[in-house]
């Protein structure tokens, strides 16, 4: 009986809150139907996309896709969906796939927003390198002209409390772990190496992820502090089994996520016509000395500047990492047998993917973009060079809005690195060019 009395006022409060009169701005943004106050908005696109030309695949990705985004808002309640139907080939695998990019329901108000469902969350103020963003998994092998295609949703509960207009607190709970997609099975890691099914954590309460972020957007600066506890979507590899047939080893590797705590912070400061940005994360792991798939604790940091030089938007970033409790593999006693030698080689591979092959890791990225022809054309160039590992990539792209609804994009991606580096393996699969034609409605 007591609960009934609680539930009824809460329900009435929600209803009363939802019956507010909206202004012109909110009505238009949400495409309000004046009569029913049901706000419906649909948009979408069709596109044909091709990516290919690598050493291993003439056609890495080749598909046609229809995407539709729908937003229904009934007063303060919200439903959003982004569905994509795709037919084509991805690394020689033909098929038709229905992808739910996002679908979530929610409650939006002036003071608090609550969302539940499959949703993509992007944390961090830097461009492309976000040490504080441990929430969103990526499919790094879905190759298209649009980097956003690689973002994957989590099933999550997200709340954002607007404490003041300048300060908000975001809380996120992710009950089920979703890893990023790394197709290392496509790499040429040698004829003796195979991959078994990943060892994903059980779907239990304790294996869920929690995250919180205090965000401050002040006139002269913006900054946030954040915390994440959970399994990192960026997992490591463990040795599942090593067996020998005559003199040939059979090495089975297994993707294995690891638990971590991350304390992060970021800021941006406008200085005249420049913007300074920085983002850092302190990653805490345990049992890393016993397990090759768990990286050492580290401090990851990115600092950058943005400025427009005669219309060329230039973003220069330094990306660094300091590995705590670092011990070089070279300092270990020599391996006692062949199995030990293989395990050590694989441990070195894990360190490479975590950028922990040295105590410190230093890299630079440069992004240039310019719009021209009355903003109907855009050219971009993104480059990255890792000073420590000597790996690099470059990504040029040109896009042209032929009409308001028709757009084409063309570009490429080129990875390179020393022998047996991650970029060297990736280059055989990911290098190539892309072309896309897209009609939006």
């Amino acid at each position, binding site marked *: 009986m007591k609960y009934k009395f609680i539930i009824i006022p809460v329900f009435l409060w929600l209803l009363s809150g939802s019956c507010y*009169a909206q*202004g*012109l*701005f*909110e009505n*238009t*943004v949400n*495409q309000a139907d004046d009569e029913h106050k049901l706000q419906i908005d649909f*948009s*979408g*696109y069709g596109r044909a996309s091709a990516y290919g030309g690598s050493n291993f695949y003439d056609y890495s990705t080749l598909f046609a896709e229809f995407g539709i985004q729908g937003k229904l808002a009934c007063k303060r309640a919200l439903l959003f969906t982004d569905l994509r139907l795709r037919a084509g080939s991805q690394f020689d695998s033909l098929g038709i796939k229905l992808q739910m990019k996002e679908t979530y329901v929610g409650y*939006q108000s*002036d*003071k608090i*927003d609550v969302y539940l469902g499959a949703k*993509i969350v*992007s944390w961090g*103020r830097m461009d492309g390198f976000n040490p504080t963003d441990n929430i969103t998994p990526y499919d790094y092998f879905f190759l298209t002209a*649009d980097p*956003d295609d690689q*973002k994957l949703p989590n099933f999550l509960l997200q709340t*954002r409390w*607007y404490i003041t*207009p*300048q300060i*908000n607190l975001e809380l996120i709970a992710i009950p089920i772990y979703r890893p990023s997609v790394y197709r290392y099975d496509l790499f040429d890691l040698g004829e003796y190496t195979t991959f078994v099914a990943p060892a994903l954590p059980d779907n239990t309460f304790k294996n869920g992820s929690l995250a919180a972020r205090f*965000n401050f*957007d002040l*006139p*002269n600066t*913006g900054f946030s502090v954040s915390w994440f506890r959970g399994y990192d979507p960026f997992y490591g590899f463990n040795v599942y089994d090593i067996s020998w047939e005559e003199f040939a080893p059979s090495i089975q590797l297994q993707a294995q996520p690891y638990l971590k705590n991350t304390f992060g912070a970021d800021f*941006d400061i*406008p200085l*005249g*016509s*420049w*913007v300074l940005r920085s983002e850092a994360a302190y990653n805490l792991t345990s049992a890393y000395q016993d397990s090759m798939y768990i990286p050492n604790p580290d401090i990851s940091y990115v600092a950058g500047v*943005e*400025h*427009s030089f005669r*219309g060329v938007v230039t973003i220069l970033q330094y990306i660094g990492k300091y590995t705590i409790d670092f011990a070089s593999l070279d300092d270990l006693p020599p391996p006692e047998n062949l199995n030990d030698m293989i395990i050590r080689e694989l441990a070195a591979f894990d360190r490479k993917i975590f950028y922990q092959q040295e105590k410190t890791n230093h890299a630079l990225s440069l992004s240039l973009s310019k*719009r021209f022809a*009355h*903003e*109907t054309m855009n050219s971009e160039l993104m480059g990255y060079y890792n000073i420590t590992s000597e790996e690099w990539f470059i990504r040029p792209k040109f896009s042209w*809005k032929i*009409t*308001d*609804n028709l*757009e084409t994009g063309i570009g490429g991606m080129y990875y390179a690195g020393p022998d047996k580096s991650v970029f060297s393996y990736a280059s055989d699969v990911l290098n190539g060019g892309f072309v896309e034609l897209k009609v*939006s*409605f």
Partner: protein
Amino acid sequence: MRTKHLIIATILLFASTTVRSQDAKEISTKALNVTDIDAMEMTSTLTIMDAKGHERIRKTSTASKKFGETTKIITKFTAPADVKGTGLLVYDYENKNDDMWIYLPAIRKVRRIVSSEKGKSFMGSEFSNADMSKPNLDDYTYKTLGTEEYHGIMCWKIESVPMNDDLAYDNGFSKKIALIDKNSYFTYKITYYDLNNELHKEMTISGYDEVGSGMFLARNMVMINLQNGRKSILTIDQLQNGSSLTENSFTPAALEK
């Protein structure tokens, strides 16, 4: 004696120049204030035409409200599909650079941007970013060039010159000449000269509607680029005087909604 006459003449010349200069600034201030509405919401259509008459159309929804000394403006693009969802938030300050944030659905993030290069094209149109916000009056020197009749209305002819080369570069013009109604202080026409002091663009403003006590808003602005023949038209489709939106609706986080 001759020297005395010369000094008096010089003083009078300086004095008269100063008086004229103050008048011109006062007129410009009044012209700005007559459209300086504390709070409003509107939808608008931006039509961009190239020299051959091909059209591109952008639709936006905008809310603007003054909080303390700061005017906060949030704009969301509602059409066409490829820019739909893009949001822009501006904190417009009187005497310092504006704070600006942009939300791009493609990267799902709000980013702070800087308000330099006000002279850059607004959404590929002939309007510049500077045309979309309230100018900082102290960035210019003013001169009254006389009066001129515009469609039967007597107007002040006011020249505004950026204070220095940096401001000229930022705003994208070396000077502008405005025709301001002598009675209502409505601005009807502004002629822009490029950085080489060549005639560049001409903006005509019409459809002034009263939206509050003594406050007006122009519903139509047409900018013609006299050098390349391109033309852009900004039309206010719907207008609401005042806004019930709270300050929480004018935050970077609100851009994502």
